[in-house]
């Protein structure tokens, strides 16, 4: 593969992103829909309930679903506008193949499958099975996530399968497995209601999980104190009782310093520590020297604020700690997570009403999708692909010999590096847009250009797919039945509302057909999504993420079931650890010693500023979907460089001036937005945009050694004001930047 078949501008003109606005009078039939389908939003891990209005096999509008217990009708702007994808002019309606110098041309499904199979066979025959990799994503349902995991190992027979959850929740997952032996938020959000202290760390709740804001306010109405740890004064931080404006990359120092104070003032639950935990002495030793002066110097947070947080956390009878990507996207993401867990364990506030701890899972099926086997090191039920017992069990469910089961493969970023090195030659991707969402994306582009063959399954031609030889038009969330598992651990039903348009097909039918043509038909004889779920139930049985007792009917009857649910008469588990039986080998919750270490890239004379990245409320992840929805694009049309006025004055930067941001990996220009709501040593750019407007041209590929999550949240940069105002957003058209 080489560069794009024609210029990016040409491809954009044909395939978008273009903006879809609803007609002024609404879509015809909205007032008299054929069907009102109760399902969920396709975006974040909250998985808000929503009703879609269907007329003549098209989605024509939405209605709030007020009976669904998590969100009771509440939605964010993305949820309100989500229905605009089905009627979108950019929708891929036929398989298309690359034509050098021309772009892409439609081909029939048979020809597309023939081409794909022959390329898979050629590459695997020539370079070995693992030279063909697969990348997947957790906007997929549990059924599809499970199917992809099985497909890659049994049909494609490659070890190199990984997923975009690698950019999302893996640090939290790894930390939770180390501490609790199980990877799920310990509590559902009803435990927020009477928590005395709510501490949220590195999570811009009001922009990334807007409907969770209600639950946090409910706690505050009942008297909870809210502590927000964030380098920026986000909308949720604005009214917090305590905002700790941390210097990016110093999170574990803060949690170490708070633990130091809990120990110093004996704000500890000695009974819980003695009877239900291990490793406390190690954790204590690690923070011995982390006094307030050190903490202030390291974290950049005034010491009285750190002390106030420790006091409130220490004195509380009930509490709920939540964190998200802000502490997880680090080369020490797992350590940051373990630092938070240490605070929860030290005070013994877990497994009881209103005593909670949870990561806030980011992607729609970030929870379920990380349990059932499309991670490079994992098998269904959150089993370990290197554990002989686990391999044996799953092999028996799949009807293969254990020795045929591939081993542990490379993680997402490492797969791209291996492609860049020429070790991986072929790629099949679904539900992943790494050219926008992975860090250091100049390297990602070079890697894509080196592939001998790349096929992509997607409903829109995302930026990465422009590099493909073959694109198979797949299905939207509302075009297939299934289940997802929300950030709370609640398994909910996704209902099919319509059939895929044109010659597009469901993702499931595409994967099953490829499996068949690869000669693995006997392992993939599913007639429905429910069939796949029923096999998933068996495959997960006995694993930590045990779905065996969950059926479609049970989900529908109860508006969701919380796993673990080991038998059909089991009610599910909304709150973990009430029995104090942790899933670690010794049955105890584990403290970890978390000595502080610096982020991978520090500021210096050449790169004096800290760059951090994040999101805005109107866009979702790499923007494949939301950069095509008109009103969402208009709400925040282009990425802005948030900079403190003092810093701007130092560099002579004016509001709306174009500023070149330079890192060791790349450079890009953004309009400056002067705001007092950010630290003076830090600048922020949201990352949802492609091409020249992509913040991930700048971010670093340093990975956490355990979770292999990239360090999106901190790197060093230089600011070069360009001496001219930025063009208007309408001129820049960042949503479709080449």
């Amino acid at each position: 593969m080489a560069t794009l078949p024609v210029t990016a501008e040409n491809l954009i003109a044909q395939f978008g992103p273009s903006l879809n606005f609803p007609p002024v009078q609404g879509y015809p039939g909205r007032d008299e829909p054929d069907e009102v389908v109760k399902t969920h939003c396709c975006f974040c891990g909250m998985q808000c309930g929503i009703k879609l209005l269907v007329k003549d096999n098209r989605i024509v509008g939405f209605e709030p679903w007020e009976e669904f217990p998590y969100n009771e009708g509440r939605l964010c702007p993305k949820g309100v506008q989500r229905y605009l994808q089905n009627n979108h002019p950019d929708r891929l309606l036929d398989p298309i193949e690359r034509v050098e110098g021309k772009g892409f041309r439609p081909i029939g499904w048979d020809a597309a499958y023939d081409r794909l199979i022959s390329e898979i066979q050629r590459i695997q025959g020539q370079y070995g099975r693992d030279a063909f990799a697969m990348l997947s994503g957790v906007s997929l349902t549990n059924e599809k996530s499970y199917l992809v995991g099985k497909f890659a190992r049994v049909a494609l027979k490659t070890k190199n399968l990984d997923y975009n959850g690698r950019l999302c929740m893996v640090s939290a997952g790894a930390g939770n497995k180390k501490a609790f032996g199980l990877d799920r938020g310990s509590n559902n959000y009803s435990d927020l209601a009477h928590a005395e202290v709510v501490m949220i760390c590195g999570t811009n709740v009001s922009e990334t999980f807007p409907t969770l804001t209600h639950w946090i306010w409910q706690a505050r109405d009942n008297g909870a104190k809210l502590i927000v740890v964030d380098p920026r004064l986000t909308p949720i931080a604005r009214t917090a009782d305590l905002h700790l404006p941390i210097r990016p990359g110093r999170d574990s120092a803060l949690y170490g310093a708070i633990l130091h104070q809990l120990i110093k003032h004996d704000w500890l639950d000695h009974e819980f520590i003695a009877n239900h935990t291990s490793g406390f002495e190690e954790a204590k030793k690690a923070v011995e020297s982390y006094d307030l002066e050190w903490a202030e110097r390291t974290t950049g947070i005034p010491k009285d604020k750190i002390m106030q947080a420790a006091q409130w956390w220490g004195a509380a009878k009930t509490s709920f700690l939540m964190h998200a990507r802000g502490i997880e996207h680090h080369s020490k993401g797992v350590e940051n997570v373990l630092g938070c867990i240490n605070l929860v364990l030290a005070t013994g506030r877990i497994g009881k009403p209103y005593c909670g701890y949870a990561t806030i899972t980011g992607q729609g099926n970030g929870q379920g999708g990380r349990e059932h086997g499309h991670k490079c090191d994992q098998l269904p039920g959150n089993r370990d692909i290197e554990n002989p017992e686990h391999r044996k069990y799953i092999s028996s469910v799949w009807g293969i010999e254990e020795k045929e089961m591939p081993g542990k493969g490379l993680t997402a970023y490492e797969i791209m590096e291996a492609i860049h090195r020429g070790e991986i030659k072929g790629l099949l991707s679904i539900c992943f847009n790494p050219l926008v969402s992975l860090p250091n994306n100049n390297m990602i582009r070079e890697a894509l250009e080196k592939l001998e063959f790349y096929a992509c399954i997607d409903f829109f031609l995302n930026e990465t797919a422009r590099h493909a030889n073959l694109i198979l038009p797949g299905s939207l969330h509302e075009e297939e039945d299934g289940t997802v598992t929300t950030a709370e651990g609640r398994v909910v039903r996704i209902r099919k509302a319509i059939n895929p348009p044109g010659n597009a097909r469901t993702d499931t039918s595409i994967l099953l057909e490829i499996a068949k043509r690869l000669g693995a038909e006997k392992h993939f004889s599913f007639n429905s999504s429910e069939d796949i779920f029923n096999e998933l139930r068996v495959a997960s049985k006995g694993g930590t993420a045990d779905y065996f007792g969950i059926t479609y009917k049970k989900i529908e009857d109860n508006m969701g079931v919380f796993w673990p649910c080991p038998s059909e008469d089991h009610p599910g588990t909304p709150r973990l650890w009430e029995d104090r039986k942790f899933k670690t080998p010794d049955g105890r919750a584990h403290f970890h010693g978390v000595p502080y270490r610096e982020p991978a890239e520090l500021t210096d004379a050449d790169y004096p500023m800290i760059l951090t990245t994040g999101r805005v409320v109107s866009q979702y992840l790499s923007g494949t979907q939301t950069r095509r929805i008109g009103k969402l694009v208009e709400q925040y049309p282009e990425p802005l460089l948030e900079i403190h006025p003092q810093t701007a004055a130092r560099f002579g930067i004016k509001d709306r001036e174009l500023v070149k941001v330079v890192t060791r990996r790349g450079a890009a220009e953004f309009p400056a937005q002067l705001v007092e709501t950010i630290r003076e040593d830090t600048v922020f750019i949201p990352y949802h945009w492609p091409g020249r407007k992509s913040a991930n041209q700048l971010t670093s590929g340093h990975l956490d050694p355990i979770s292999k999550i990239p360090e999106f949240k901190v790197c060093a940069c230089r600011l070069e004001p360009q001496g001219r105002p930025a063009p208007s957003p309408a001129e820049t058209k960042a949503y479709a930047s080449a």
Partner: protein
Amino acid sequence: MNTTTFRTDQEFFFDPQRCIGCHACEMACAECETNGQTAMIHVDYVDRFLTTQTSVQVCMHCEDPVCAKVCPADAITKDEFGIVHSANTARCIACSNCVQACPFGVPKKVEPLDLMMKCNMCYDRTSAGKKPMCATVCPSGALFYGTREQITRNRPKSSPVNTFRFGQQLVKTKVNIMMPKGATELIVDSE
């Protein structure tokens, strides 16, 4: 006579401290078929340079609506439930008197239609016993539609206020703003 199922025990409350500026209310409002993709509720930053604080302006549905008083065409009416309806399309002459007169700056002249449009508290929904769209989708509870008893019980640190003083002018509204506990009126312009 109440021939609708409008619930007279339900009121509209806006709590500015909860607003996260997400614009879900605007987007959902615009979806209503009578609004033709124009939102009747408006979200704005107060001063983005200084803060992430945003505020929402929704029609306050005044007890004695100035917009209706100054309308030369009698296009704006208040109904038995206290809803001040958007301009009657047959009568409105787009003179903008109401736009000028409203102390809250709510009515907007929609140029392409040559018509004043404003919030009618989702009369199609509320008259059928449902909540207005904006207050249904609001993810933070900044917009709430329910009983006074509910809001008083659920938000013990705030008081609903529907009395506004603009200099000498006293305005009472159907819509409430949540203020610190014990507050009874909002003095917008104290001179």
